[in-house]
């Protein structure tokens, strides 16, 4: 990872402004989403990210590429966001981030399935998903609905789906950056994706 990014970091060290802005743009969404886990409000998260970039510049000469650049970046954001959250008097949602499975959240409403005491097909679809209209999948409004569904997610689920599915990070990278176990990362991703699918289903059924 650090091998891929190092030409860019060298450019940064050489004072290349365009390289710096490109780097900021590339990581902005991920950083804001991660900060939001701790501070929730988007405007505060953006402030934290600004602060983090200053920390990045200060620390750049000490960055030796032992962790990936992304991991390092996200660690700086996370630490600043935690500090800020404490200052804002917010309780850091450790339990929500660490053990999401403690609160069950079905991927699909239980009413969509036959009851557990159904004589023939317990737990099978009572109302199957209907087919999605191919020609509407790529419409602008579809993307707007997806965006809205992601915004409406709990902060930790929003962070995970953004990093995995918008930014294309690997599960391992997300686990490292958010200090999540593999299982919890998957639970959060599953819930987030299931809700976005549900939002799309409601939209296409309108």
């Amino acid at each position, binding site marked *: 990872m650090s091998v891929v990014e190092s030409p860019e970091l060298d450019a940064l060290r050489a*004072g290349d*402004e365009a390289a*710096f*802005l490109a780097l*900021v*743009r*590339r990581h*902005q*969404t*991920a950083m*804001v989403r991660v900060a939001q886990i701790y501070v929730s409000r988007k405007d505060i998260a*953006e402030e934290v990210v*600004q602060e983090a*970039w*200053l920390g990045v*510049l*200060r620390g750049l000469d000490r960055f030796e590429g032992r962790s990936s650049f992304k991991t390092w970046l996200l660690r700086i954001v996370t630490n600043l966001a935690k500090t800020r959250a404490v200052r804002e008097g917010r309780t850091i949602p450790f339990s929500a981030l660490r053990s999401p499975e403690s609160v069950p959240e*079905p*991927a*699909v409403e*239980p009413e969509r*399935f036959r009851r557990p005491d159904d004589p023939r*097909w*317990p*737990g*099978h*679809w009572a109302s*199957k*998903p209907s*087919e*999605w209209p191919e020609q509407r*999948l790529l419409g602008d409004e*579809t*993307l707007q609905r*997806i*965006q809205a569904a*992601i915004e409406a997610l709990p902060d930790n689920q929003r962070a995970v*789906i953004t990093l995995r*599915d*918008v*930014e*294309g990070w690997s*599960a391992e990278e997300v686990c490292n950056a958010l200090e999540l176990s*593999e299982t919890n990362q*998957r639970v959060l*991703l*599953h819930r987030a*994706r*299931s809700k*976005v*699918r549900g939002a*799309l*289903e409601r939209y296409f059924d309108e």
Partner: protein
Amino acid sequence: MNDATVEALSCQELVELVTAYLEGALPAPDRARFDEHLASCTGCHRYVEQMRTTIRLVGRLTPSDLSPDAERDLLAAFRSWRR
């Protein structure tokens, strides 16, 4: 014909395993039960396809952009850092 020693998955159970399935995180016996269910259930087949479509569509979202103010402040910080 059927291997009756393993209990079949219900649809309600299957929808909770989709992410583990797509991530390749299901143990082999569970994966086999999943595949077996998918092969004969149009509802679940469609459901899994919709999850794949959802992932693909989420990937089309463009990351949010920097505000001009943020960009100006960062550039200023970058310039003073170089000195």
